[in-house]
């Protein structure tokens, strides 16, 4: 895995600021880290090569970890884990891809 700079941010504004700073400092590309399952795997395989990682996990989970379903569709907060989405009763009811189980 290639090395990278790492920063934790508490708010979306701080995340945007960190991203702008990374770009300005020549650290391209930057990626946001939430769960990281795909990002870390692809970094190990040298498919994704971020020079800056911005960890958004300190964001307020009450605001950014929500799953909302409305007439406009499905809205997944940036901190929603795959397991939480898969386990959500309304997602299971309305967004099932296979009829099994």
């Amino acid at each position: 895995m290639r090395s990278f700079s790492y920063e934790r941010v508490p708010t979306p504004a701080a995340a945007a600021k960190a991203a702008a700073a990374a770009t300005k400092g020549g650290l391209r590309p930057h990626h946001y880290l939430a769960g990281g399952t795909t990002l870390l795997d692809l970094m190990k395989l040298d498919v994704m090569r971020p020079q800056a990682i911005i960890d958004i996990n300190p964001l307020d989970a009450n605001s950014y970890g929500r799953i909302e379903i409305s007439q406009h569709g499905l809205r997944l907060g940036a901190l929603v884990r795959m397991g939480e989405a898969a386990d959500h009763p309304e997602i299971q009811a309305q967004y099932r891809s296979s009829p099994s189980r």
Partner: protein
Amino acid sequence: MATVSTAAAPLLARSSGAEAATGQPGSTAGRPVDVTLTVNGQERQLAFDVRTSLLDLLRERLGLTGTKKGCDHGQCGACTVLLNGRRVLSCLTLAVATKGREVTTIEGLASNGTLHPMQQAFIDNDAFQCGYCTPGQILSAVACVNEGHADNEADIREYMSGNLCRCAAYPNIVAAVKQARPVMKTASKD
């Protein structure tokens, strides 16, 4: 032994720009990061390469080799640990991202020489053969019960499906989870 992540990584990214721009020292590529985290109830202060996975930190730095490295790509579940009580794949978790959080490994489950009910249930039900996946299975099973996902066999199979057992001890693993569930519920009420 060199970790997989560092062995394959001769390149150090340019470092000074972002730090200067954001004023956030200690987060720069190529320089060790200082992190304090809690492992099995014990606070640990460590400095390590930013690329270090939680799995490599546990095994290579802390000597906690109970957590196993299977695929190192998040497919097998052998490296499952609890992070603030929630199960995570330690191979796909950056150690630096666990700052200030609580990690529980298989070494931290027993208390005062008494096995955790799930550990005991795995022994009672012969829920393993080679044992390599077992620490991950047990951590996952503990979380599975705590999540309320162990009410029936179908749920147990579904919510344990991220932990592969190539010896195929699955029937006995399900039996172990079923045995431990009421014991864990009773213990949590005490």
